[in-house]
């Protein structure tokens, strides 16, 4: 009987194909990297690759939350303006607290971040209730919240213009690195070293920028959450067959609530990061990233019909988008042709994935 369960060798997928399939998307990314390294002066350098990664940190945060939501057969159109809303709150609260609390930024900053993350998660709470309990379709609920968060962002920022954060030190955190190296000084942690008179500032190598660190940590947590926990398992179940999930005893409404709150929370983290990096609470900070952040998830193999998708896929999808954008600028392609090229590469990326599926499934 047990013997029946053991797999006859011939029935297992042939190894080489499986390996190709697993690394296929990486391969496409590698191809892109190779192409741009050959054609774009300065593309292939530690600093450029690191800054691609750093520049995509905000979009990646939004994509991580979106991945959960999309796997659960939902969609969150509100993440962009939720990010902006959280950025506004962060800037406003920080400006209000600084000077009123002891310890300089020491107390004001953590407190303002907590408040911004808390308030920024509220749109997700409302989305979750609307979708999970009141059965409003995700597209509608989050489109409504898109408008609401947008309006509130502008209102809280006092009439449209971004809220500037002038307290010194804030930008140093958001633009700081974990490690610095200068030939004249050696390594130095967290703070850029004071350079001796003769040393050229441009020789300073900065390693692991703050937004990138946050994004990496968030990615690892989300990866674990999606693939290794009940929460992740239930997310897949919900997206694959909501009625079956319900009959199996999964608390569908509560799970939905958590998912949209998580998405809003991660968008808020992006909003806070935006303020730390750009010292500016801008209601418009996130929306331009929305379409890209959804596209990254879908390029990464998630289906808008739910039930499919992985965090690694989303990471690759985001990387593909940002590598193309960076590469095309570096090559110096006409900006209008860039639109065409990006569109074509996105299609190509998925087309190759389809081809793979066909190779494997014949």
């Amino acid at each position, binding site marked *: 009987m047990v013997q029946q369960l053991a797999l006859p060798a011939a029935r297992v997928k042939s190894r080489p194909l499986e390996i190709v399939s697993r690394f296929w998307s990486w391969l496409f990314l590698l191809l892109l990297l190779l192409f741009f390294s050959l054609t774009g002066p300065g*593309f292939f350098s530690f600093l450029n690759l690191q800054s691609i990664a750093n*520049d995509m940190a905000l979009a990646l945060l939004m994509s991580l939350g979106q991945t959960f939501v999309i796997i659960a057969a939902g969609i969150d159109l509100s993440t962009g303006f939720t990010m902006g809303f959280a950025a506004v709150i962060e800037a406003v609260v920080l400006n209000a607290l600084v000077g009123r609390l002891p310890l300089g930024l020491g107390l004001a900053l953590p407190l303002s971040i907590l408040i911004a993350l808390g308030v920024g998660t509220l749109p997700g709470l409302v989305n979750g209730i609307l979708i999970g309990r009141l059965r409003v379709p995700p597209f509608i609920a989050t489109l409504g919240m898109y408008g609401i968060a947008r309006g509130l962002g502008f209102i809280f920022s006092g009439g449209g213009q971004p809220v500037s954060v002038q307290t010194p030190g804030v930008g140093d955190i958001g633009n700081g690195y974990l490690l610095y190296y200068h030939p004249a000084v050696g390594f130095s942690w967290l703070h850029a070293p004071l350079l001796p008179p003769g040393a050229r*500032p*441009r020789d300073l190598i900065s390693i692991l920028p703050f937004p990138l660190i946050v994004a990496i940590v968030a990615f690892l947590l989300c990866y674990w959450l999606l693939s290794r926990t009940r929460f992740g398992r239930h997310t897949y179940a919900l997206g694959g067959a909501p009625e079956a999930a319900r009959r199996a005893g999964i608390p569908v409404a509560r799970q939905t609530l958590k998912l949209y709150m998580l998405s809003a929370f991660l968008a808020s983290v992006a909003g806070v990061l*935006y303020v730390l990096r750009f010292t500016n609470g801008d209601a418009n*900070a996130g*929306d331009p990233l929305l379409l890209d952040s959804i596209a990254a998830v879908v390029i990464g193999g998630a289906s808008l019909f739910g039930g499919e998708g992985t965090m690694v896929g989303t990471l690759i999808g985001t990387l593909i988008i940002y590598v193309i954008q*960076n590469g095309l600028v570096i090559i110096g392609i006409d*900006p*209008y042709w860039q639109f065409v090229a990006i569109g074509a590469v996105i299609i190509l990326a998925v087309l190759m994935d389809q081809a793979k599926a066909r190779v494997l499934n014949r």
Partner: protein
Amino acid sequence: ATSGGAGSSNYTLALIVGVKGDPFYITMQKGAEAKAKELGVTLLVDGPSQWSATLQTPIVSAYMARKVDAIIIAPCDKQAMIAPLQQASNAGIKVITVDTYIGDGDYVHGPVTFPLSYIGSDNVQGGKIAGEALIKAIGGHGKVYIQNTVPGTSTTDQREQGCKEAIEATHGAVTLVGVDFNGDSAAKAAEQTTAMLQRVPDLAGIFGTNIYGSEGAAQAVKNAHKQGQVKIANFDAPEQAIVDLKNNVVDIVIAQKPADMGSIGVQYAVDALKGNMGAIQKRVPTGYVIITRDNVDTPEAQAAIYKSS
């Protein structure tokens, strides 16, 4: 400004516009390209697909990686773009801002001093000039409506602010009945203006902070058969705006001089790279031209039109 002369060196300059596909920036690009050709330097041009610091920053990163010698940029946000440009500056890249600025635009005494120059016309002032011209056109009193684009866009918001200042200066003779955002869509602007004309039948003037606002407004005015009654002022002067002006669709066109901005920006960048710092002014106001049906055919007005070719 001193000229570098052709074939001076092979510097690579980058012009980063505020948003791709905008006639204003296309004209700026044309000016910059002409100057770059003249000076024999390489000019790269790019910009974000939307007016957004989040999208503009990666472009700065990319040009840093490409190690361009100078960045001429219309920053999308005066605060947010400080840090990325500071990094570029730290990497030894010359930074010049055109059209818009970072900090408060005062690179001598202001909070930000590393950019070499701010070349452009203050949008608040432009809005004020436009507002004043519109107020004059409606006879000094009446109701005015502002058609703005995308909320949070600094240039158009400043134009709105300037127009409001002009209205306030009339001490009640002119009143502002509302501001709406059309999201850069003439169709939406038409829809909103239609509604506004229902609410305020005796509307006297409309200020469009860019071409979409005024074109849409003009359609709505026309469909309500209120041409002549409602004066329309348009900020920026693409060809379409001049056609509209000649067809009595709009009444006032406020032109900036984007080509000059681009051209001076390139000139300054080359000057700075050659160490010719003395030629560079920290602030170059490029000014405005007010175009009406009366002066549209003058050489000065014709020169100010943003041309696609």
